[in-house]
């Protein structure tokens, strides 16, 4: 999926329009702080109109106040609309794709009829031929085809979809580019993957997460506290024999209540989901994204995540009495025709050299014999799994024992042994090594510092698994893992109070995906897996689990940091507005005007202008998230406290002073 730049014109203009539509009280009330702001802005407007008609008051000053109060509300709406707008553009193109879909439905008699895809029901059979789009989510029941899924994933390299197994699921909107398949529809209209994706990117199905609800309560509480602090001021002023104008009280109130974080709150949530989407991961709920930040245990598949998928030859081990050169030469010859990465790595390890002799007859790998090799005149060379090679002929017991010793040693070191035999003479073994991905060890160190345990899941035997686990630096491993083992492991971790994340693709992964707190299903996986997980990775890249954790943390950090910033701003706002209000009661309180603001009305106006424009200024931060680097929680807190806490105290002193200079220079107050 393509990402749009932050302030693209195509997004900003509709967002400005939506900001006005969002003034609808039914929408506003979802955000109590901004709703309160809108209510007091209305009151200030009424007072302004009344004063204008009566010819009293200071219309220039009060008019500006009202203007900036409404702008505060609109800026908050704008932030939300802008965050939503990015999803809407994506949803629009997805919806177009969906509306164009037509299906060739196969009737009971085997005949096909062309119908709009919206008429397809669960269980219908459809035929999809080369060049056609798949009309609905389903499962391939016959045939094999290569499918371009760019419409969903943005990745144009085609993938294979075939009946049976873990690659049978197809998604509506993707295109068959070769062959033809028969697909059984597995989604009712309106509930397919495409529909869900549209809803997700559009934010239509967005509900407040528990954390957002709790924060909203805290912010509402703060609003109430400041309502009391400001609401009691008229009585205090009356005691001191003076009075304070209502618009000024409203200005103080709005400046103190946490409008900044409240205006940005839903934008932060939407942007968090959006970040995942642009990362080609679809989260089914905001809650899942937040849970990702809380992960305590990561279950990672060995192959593809921890090791690169292919093994590499690392050593030739001849049997006693066999010259190493003989083994190397035989291994090289047997692999010259083998174009797999493993075969190529054997040739490379053997030092390359001349090409295949002209009279050679390569024997390709077959699932029956599980060996491959080469036939030359007088020389028959085979290599393969140890048991398979031994089955090819009878060998002296001593030689077999020697070979076993060698291969056991290789297995213990985390490698896979390949036996090599030439004309019934055992030569030795090739040590194929799992290659740990570059940098993955460092990632695990980082994760450990973040307090996350990594667990490697592998089908290897415990010996091999232990060796690879030690080399990769994971905290634990699950060898010869069955789906039941995974489920049991997840339950055990959860019983210890940890949140567990895993990724999976097969139908047999579905229970574990459903049990885990964050289950990322691979898009290449089966429908069952995709239903069970609460996230779907469109790129089917299990490594991404690590980044998903980071995105979840970043979302919460952004929320927390901006809350801190917003509340810390109050100190400066107090020092701007309070002296301006109270100086008429006690002239000596002018000493509290530590910023040296030019006049009381300019001070009030500057504070309220700062309060308004800080919202759009922080929109980029809210949408992109605060910078996140893996580090222990204590350092993370200190860092964010220093930036957003201390910064939140200092920034408004500077900002308000600068605005005051401008306001005074322009003669606005």
């Amino acid at each position, binding site marked *: 999926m393509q990402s749009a730049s932050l302030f693209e014109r195509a997004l900003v203009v509709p967002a400005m329009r939506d900001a006005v539509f969002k003034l609808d009280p039914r929408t506003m009330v979802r955000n109590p702080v901004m709703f309160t702001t809108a209510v007091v802005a209305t009151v200030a407007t009424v007072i302004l109109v009344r004063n204008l008609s009566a010819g009293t008051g200071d219309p220039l000053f009060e008019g500006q106040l009202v203007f900036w109060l409404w702008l505060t509300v609109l800026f908050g709406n704008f932030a939300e609309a802008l965050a939503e707008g990015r999803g809407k553009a994506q949803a629009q193109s997805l919806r177009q794709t969906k509306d164009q879909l037509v299906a060739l439905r196969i009737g009971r008699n085997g005949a096909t009829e062309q119908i709009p895809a919206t008429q397809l029901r669960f269980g219908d059979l459809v035929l999809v031929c080369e060049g056609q789009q798949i009309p609905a989510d389903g499962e391939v029941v016959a045939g094999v085809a290569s499918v371009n899924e760019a419409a969903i994933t943005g990745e144009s390299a085609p993938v294979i979809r075939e009946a049976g197994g873990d690659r049978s699921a197809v998604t509506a909107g993707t295109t068959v580019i070769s062959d033809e398949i028969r697909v059984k529809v597995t989604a009712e209209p309106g509930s397919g993957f495409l529909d869900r994706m549209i809803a997700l990117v559009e934010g239509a199905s967005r509900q407040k997460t528990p*954390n957002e609800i*709790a924060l909203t*309560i*805290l912010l*509402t*509480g*703060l609003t109430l*506290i400041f309502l*009391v*602090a*400001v609401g*009691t001021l008229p*009585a*205090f002023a*009356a*005691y*001191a024999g003076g009075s304070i104008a209502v618009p000024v009280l409203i200005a103080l109130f709005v400046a103190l209540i946490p409008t900044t974080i409240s205006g940005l709150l839903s934008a932060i949530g939407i942007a968090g989901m959006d970040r995942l989407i642009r990362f080609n991961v679809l989260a089914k709920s905001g809650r899942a994204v*937040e849970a990702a*930040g*809380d992960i*305590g245990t990561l279950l990672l598949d060995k192959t593809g995540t921890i090791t690169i998928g292919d093994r590499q030859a690392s050593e030739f081990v001849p049997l006693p009495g066999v010259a190493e050169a003989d083994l190397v030469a035989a291994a090289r010859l047997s692999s010259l025709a083998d174009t797999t990465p493993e075969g190529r790595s054997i040739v490379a390890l053997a030092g390359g050299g001349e090409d295949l002799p002209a009279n050679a007859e390569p024997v390709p790998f077959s699932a029956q014999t599980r060996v491959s090799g080469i036939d030359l005149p007088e020389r028959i060379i085979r290599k393969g799994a140890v048991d398979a090679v031994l089955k090819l002929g009878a060998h002296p017991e001593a030689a077999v024992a020697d070979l076993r010793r060698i291969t056991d040693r290789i297995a213990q070191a985390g490698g896979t042994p390949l036996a090599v035999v030439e004309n019934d003479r055992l030569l030795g073994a090739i040590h194929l090594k799992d290659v740990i991905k570059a940098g993955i060890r460092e990632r695990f160190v980082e994760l*450990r*510092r*973040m*307090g*996350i*345990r990594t667990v490697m899941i592998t089908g290897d035997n415990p010996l091999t698994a232990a060796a690879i686990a030690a080399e990769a630096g994971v905290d634990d491993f699950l060898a010869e893992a069955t789906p039941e083992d995974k489920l049991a492991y997840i339950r055990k971790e959860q019983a210890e*109070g*940890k949140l567990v994340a895993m990724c999976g693709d097969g139908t047999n992964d579905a229970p574990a995906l459903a049990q885990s707190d964050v289950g990322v299903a691979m898009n290449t996986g089966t429908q069952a897996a995709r239903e069970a997980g609460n996230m779907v990775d469109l790129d089917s890249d299990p490594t991404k689990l690590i980044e998903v954790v980071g995105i*979840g*943390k*970043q*979302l*919460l*950090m952004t*929320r*927390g*940091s901006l*809350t*801190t910033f917003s*509340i810390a701003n*109050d100190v400066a706002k*107090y020092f701007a507005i*309070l002296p301006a209000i*109270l100086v008429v*009661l*006690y002239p*000596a*309180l002018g000493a*509290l005007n530590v910023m040296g603001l030019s006049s009381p009305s300019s001070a009030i106006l500057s504070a309220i202008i700062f309060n308004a424009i800080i919202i759009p200024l922080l929109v980029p931060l809210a949408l992109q998230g605060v910078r*996140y680097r893996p580090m*222990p*929680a*204590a350092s*993370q*807190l*200190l860092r*964010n*406290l220093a930036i*957003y806490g201390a910064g939140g105290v200092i920034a408004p002193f500077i900002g308000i002073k600068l605005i005051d200079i401008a306001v005074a220079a322009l003669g606005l107050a």
Partner: protein
Amino acid sequence: MFTAILTVILIVGGTALLAWPLGKYMAALFSGRFAAADGIFTRAVGGAPAQDWKQYSLALIAFNALMFVFVFAMLALQHALPLNPDGQGPASLDLVFNTASSFTTNTNLQHYSGESTWSYLAQLGGLMWLQFVSAATGIAALAALARGIGEQASMGNFFLDLQRASFCVLLPLAIIVACFIALRGVPMTFDGAATVTTLEGAVQTIARGPAAAFVAIKQLGTNGGGFFGPNSTHPLENADFWTNCFQMVSLIIIPMACVWMFGRMIGRIKHAGVVFGVMAVLLLVKMTAAIGFETAPTQAFADLPVAQDVGNLEGKELRLGATTGPLWAVLTTSTSNGSVGAMHDSLNPLTGLVPMAGMWLNETFGGVGVGMINMFLYIMVAVFVAGMMVGRTPEYLGHRVEGREMRLAVLALISHPVLILGGTALFAATAWGAGTLNNAGAHGFSEILYEFSSAAANNGSGFEGLGDNTVPWNIATGLVMLIGRYLPIIVPLAIVGSLMAKRRSAESAGTLSVEGGTFGVMLFITILIFGALTFFPAAALGPVAEHLTLMR
């Protein structure tokens, strides 16, 4: 200056040292480590079943309601009851209501002078009894809170906790303190007032009575209600330098020990250390400020030919030294004690702000038990914001903090400014308050503000300078004390009840640690922002305006 620093170090530092073993003992006591003592009580009352937070709260409220009614009746009928050698007559019912509320809530706001209003029975059987059980109620509530957080299945039994706090903590300590101060000259007699002929030959009536017993629990239970009107500035309530020091120590020792008791009961002594540290820093900041402001001469004498090189001596007991006045003022308002060692009305304006700030925050060690409970509310808010800042959904010691917990915490935190600022606004704008002031202007405003702060914080000290024995004052502060007492006790129990029901999550390097200095900083800031920012306008219109106006 040197003696001031030395006094602070000896009193605060010495008490902190003593609080450690006391906290250890209290934790053991409330963990049921003294089964034999508990057994006597449980056999006597026929069992002490485990309670959940609702049952515990209900028992607490029911017991306190009963005590309120009992003492209300005793005070109202004192003229008809024995032990009344000076023949005190009936008091007005609004004063009786205020006094019964005041002592039931551990506030001890006194709109009267004890020696001229109440009989010995009323003072000892009613008020002193409440000084024990109201303090014990606070300690019991903290024990229940700690059990809930410390992953125990139940919150314990209120009556068993009440008994433990009364008989195994407060009573033994009170006997020690009472004996010491009685030996130093504080009277302990059931004889009526003495009539003496002074050196001038005039005849003077000197009120006396069983003061030593009263004073001991007054200090230990953060009660603060004096036997005599002038409280601990009265020579018969605070005889000399040593009783003065001893009272200051006993004033703060149990609140300090409560922090360690909490830490031990939840199994997090380091966390308690951070909380203790934050409280201690707040205390030191306030002490430095108060003593610093008070070394400045009073502005009232600025134009008089008076040498003022020892700071503001107005309203101080010179027997006790000039620095102990502000020091006592800080200690008594940091804890919810409320006894006074100098007249707060006569403090320099900014010094007067310090005790008020202490009552606004109300958790710099705070009242026995309840100070730590108030701190718990700030901890909830601090872990919520800090938890998000480390990129996790917030947790406190593995308990997830969500909407319900925030709603309750915010409710309890809001109630404090609502009671103080709402009450002050009502009385400042009407004759109820404005008509009872001795001073006009900003200082008069401070007097009203102080009175409501003292009532809401269950402190009980008076700024004085206020004719507060009126029907509106008695009713209003009586209600404020009741709400300000029970809401912040019950709500935290409800929060913990809700936390207990959740699956507990494991802690790791990625979870917010509440055991480090960084969290201490976060907690400190949260307290200042949530506790103090609200009161900034009121402070500006009271002490700050007075100070700046006088400075001109």
